[in-house]
C-alpha cells in the first residue's frame, strides 16, 4: 500500500486545565500523524485525555483549558497551518471547523439544540461553508440524511431532535458533520450513547462513508471492538500520554505496553471456548491532579521496575513496523 499524503500531524501536544484545585494535565505530550483517508483509533479509559485531544485539534477546548505546548499541523493544498497558532475565535479556524475537520459528538441528545429542527442545524453548517442558497442547502441536507440512512429524509429534516430516536439522532449528527465533505472526521465516542443494535449500524455506516468519501477518520473510544472494526492505526492513551501506537492488526496481535496488554485482557469475549474470567487491570486511574512520577502507569503496572519506572518518564521507543511504545521494558534498537 502506498502511503497517502500526510493530512494532520500532532506533535508533542499538551493541553492543561487551570482551576482552583490546581493544574490538570489532561493531555501531556501526545504525538501522532494521520494520512488522507486513514482511520486512527484513540483508545483509553475515561479521563485519559482522548476527548481533549480532539477538542484541541478543533481549538474548542472548554474555558480554563489551554494548549500549553506542541504543534498541530494541518496540510491542505500543499501548505501547512499550525492550528495551535490560530486565534481560536478567528476566521481561519472557523473555516476549518465544520469545513476541513468536522466532529461527531458523544451524546446526540445533548449535542443538538432542542429548539431548532435538525434541518435548521444541518443547513446552517452547509451555508456557512458552501456558497449556496437556502433551498440548495436544504436539498443537500436531505441528500446527506438519505445517505446516512435516515428514513423519509424529506420529512425528518423538519423534525425536532427530541422527536427522534437515539439512533436517528446519531445519524443526523453524522449527516451534519459530513455535510461539508470534511477531509477529516473526528468521532468522539460515536456509539457510546446508542443501543447495541444501533451501534453496529452506526459503525457500518461510518466505515462505508469513510471509504466512499475518502476522508480520514479519528475515532475516540474506550471500546476496543469499535477500533478493531474501523481503524487502520491505534493510539492508546493513559493519563494524557500516548503510551503505545501501532497498526491495528499489530496492536491486537502483539501489544507491547503493559497497559495495552491489560486493556486487551480486560475485554470480555463472547463465544464458545472462552470461560468468562475477566482479567481487569488492578487499581484505578489516579487523580489527574496527583499524577504519579515517572511513568504514569507504574502504580498499576505488573512489570514495575523499582527505581526506574517511578523515577524516569519512559521515552518513546520506535519498534519495527511503525510500532511506538513508551515503556522502560523496551530499548531502542
Amino acid at each position, binding site marked *: 500500500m502506498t502511503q497517502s499524503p500526510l493530512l494532520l500531524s500532532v506533535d508533542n501536544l499538551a493541553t492543561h486545565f487551570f482551576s482552583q484545585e490546581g493544574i490538570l494535565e489532561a493531555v501531556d505530550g501526545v504525538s501522532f500523524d494521520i494520512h488522507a483517508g486513514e482511520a486512527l483509533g484513540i483508545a483509553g479509559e475515561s479521563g485519559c485525555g482522548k476527548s481533549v485531544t480532539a477538542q484541541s485539534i478543533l481549538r474548542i477546548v472548554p474555558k480554563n483549558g489551554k494548549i500549553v505546548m506542541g504543534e498541530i499541523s494541518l496540510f491542505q493544498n500543499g501548505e501547512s497551518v499550525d492550528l495551535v497558532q490560530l486565534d481560536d475565535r478567528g476566521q481561519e479556524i*472557523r*473555516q476549518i471547523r465544520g469545513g476541513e475537520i468536522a*466532529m461527531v459528538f458523544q451524546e446526540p441528545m445533548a*449535542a443538538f439544540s432542542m*429548539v431548532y429542527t435538525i434541518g435548521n442545524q444541518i443547513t446552517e453548517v452547509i451555508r456557512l461553508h458552501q456558497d449556496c442558497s437556502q433551498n440548495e442547502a436544504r436539498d443537500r441536507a436531505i441528500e446527506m440524511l438519505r445517505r446516512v440512512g435516515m428514513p423519509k429524509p424529506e420529512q425528518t429534516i423538519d423534525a*425536532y431532535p427530541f422527536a427522534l430516536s437515539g439512533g436517528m439522532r446519531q445519524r443526523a449528527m453524522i449527516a451534519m458533520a459530513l455535510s461539508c465533505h470534511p477531509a477529516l472526521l473526528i468521532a468522539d465516542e460515536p456509539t457510546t450513547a446508542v443501543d447495541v443494535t444501533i451501534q453496529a449500524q452506526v459503525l457500518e455506516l461510518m466505515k462505508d462513508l469513510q471509504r466512499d468519501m475518502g476522508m480520514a477518520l479519528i475515532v475516540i473510544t474506550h471500546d476496543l471492538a469499535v477500533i478493531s472494526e474501523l481503524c487502520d492505526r491505534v493510539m492508546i492513551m493513559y493519563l494524557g500520554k500516548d503510551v503505545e501506537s501501532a497498526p491495528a492488526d499489530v496492536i491486537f496481535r502483539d501489544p507491547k505496553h503493559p497497559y495495552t496488554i491489560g486493556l486487551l485482557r480486560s475485554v470480555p469475549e463472547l463465544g464458545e471456548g472462552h470461560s468468562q474470567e475477566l482479567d481487569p487491570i488492578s487499581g484505578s486511574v489516579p487523580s489527574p491532579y496527583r499524577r504519579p512520577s515517572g511513568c504514569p502507569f507504574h502504580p498499576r503496572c505488573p512489570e514495575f521496575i523499582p527505581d526506574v519506572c517511578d523515577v524516569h518518564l519512559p521515552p518513546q521507543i520506535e519498534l519495527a513496523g511503525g510500532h511506538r511504545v513508551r515503556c522502560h521494558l523496551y530499548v531502542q534498537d
Partner: protein
Amino acid sequence: MWSFILRRILLMVPTLFVVSVISFVIIEAPPGDFMDSYVNALLQEQEAVDPAEIESLRKRYGLDAPTYVRYFRWLGNIMQGNLGRSLEWNQPVSKLVADRLPWSLAISVASFFLAYAIAIPIGLYSATRQYSLGDYFFTLIGFIGLATPNFLLALLILWYYFVATGNVAVGLFSDEYLIAPWSFAKFIDLLKHLWLPALVVGTAGTAGLIRVMRANLLDELERPYVMVARSKGLSEGKLLVKYPFRIAMNPVASTIGWTLPTLVNGELLASLVLGLPTIAPLFVGALLSQDMFLAGSVVMILSTLTLVGTLLSDIVLAWLDPRIRGAI
C-alpha cells in the same frame, strides 16, 4: 401553535372565576363594612349619626344581604360590564379606574421595557465575561439596585433633579399640558416625565433580571450543543444568540406574567412620592375605607392583567421552545 394559544385562553375562564371568589373573600375578610367606616369618619368629625339613616343606606347598597348573595350580585354586574359605584368617591368605579389605569399601564409597560432593555444585554455581557472587571462592576450595581427601596431612589432622583435643573419632577405632565387635549407635543411631554417613574419602579426588577439572565446563560454556555455549534465554525456572537441565549431567555420570559402586578405594587410608593395619578394609591384608599366595589374591581383588573401577562409569557415560551407547544 394556534391551538396552543386557544387552549390557554379557554383555561383563563375558570381561573378568572376562582380569582373573583378569592378577591371577594379577601375584600370581605376585614370585619365591618363601608358603613362602619363611614360612621367612624362621621363620629370623628363630631357629626350626628342617625342609625336609621345608616340602616337605610345599608339596605340601599345591598350591604345587609348575605355574603354569597352579594358575591353573585357583584359578579353578575361585572359580567355586564358594570363595576359598581365607589361609595367613597360617589362615582362609577369604571370612571375612576379608566382615569387612572392607563397611567399605571404606561408606567408598567415603560419600566418593563426599560428593565428588559437594560438587563438582557448586561446579563449577556456578564455571563460571557464571567469574573471580569465589567462583570464585577455590574454585579455590584445590580446588588445596589436590588437593595435600594424604590421610594428612596425616587426621593434621591427628585432631589438630584431639582438641584440640577431647578424643576420638580413630579406628575406625568408639565403644567401647560396637564389639561391640554392630546397632541404629539403632549405625548413627548409624557415620555419626558415617564422615564423617572419607569426607572424608579423598574430598578429592582432590572437588577433581579440581570442575575437571572447571567446565571441561566452561564449554565447554558457549558452545554454540549454550544461546543457542537462552535465545532461547526459558527462565530462566537452568532452562536451565542442562536443557541444558548434562546434557552436562557426561557426563565426570563416566564416572569413576564407576574411582572405586571409586581410593577403595580412597586408603583405604589413611587406614585405617592412622585405624585402620580395611578391606580395604586386609589387601591390603597379603597381598602382603607372598605370601599368594596372599588377595591374588588381593582383586584379583579390586576388579576386579569396577571392572567393576560401569563398568557403572553406562555406564548413567548412556546415560541422560544418547541417542546412547550405540545404541552397543556
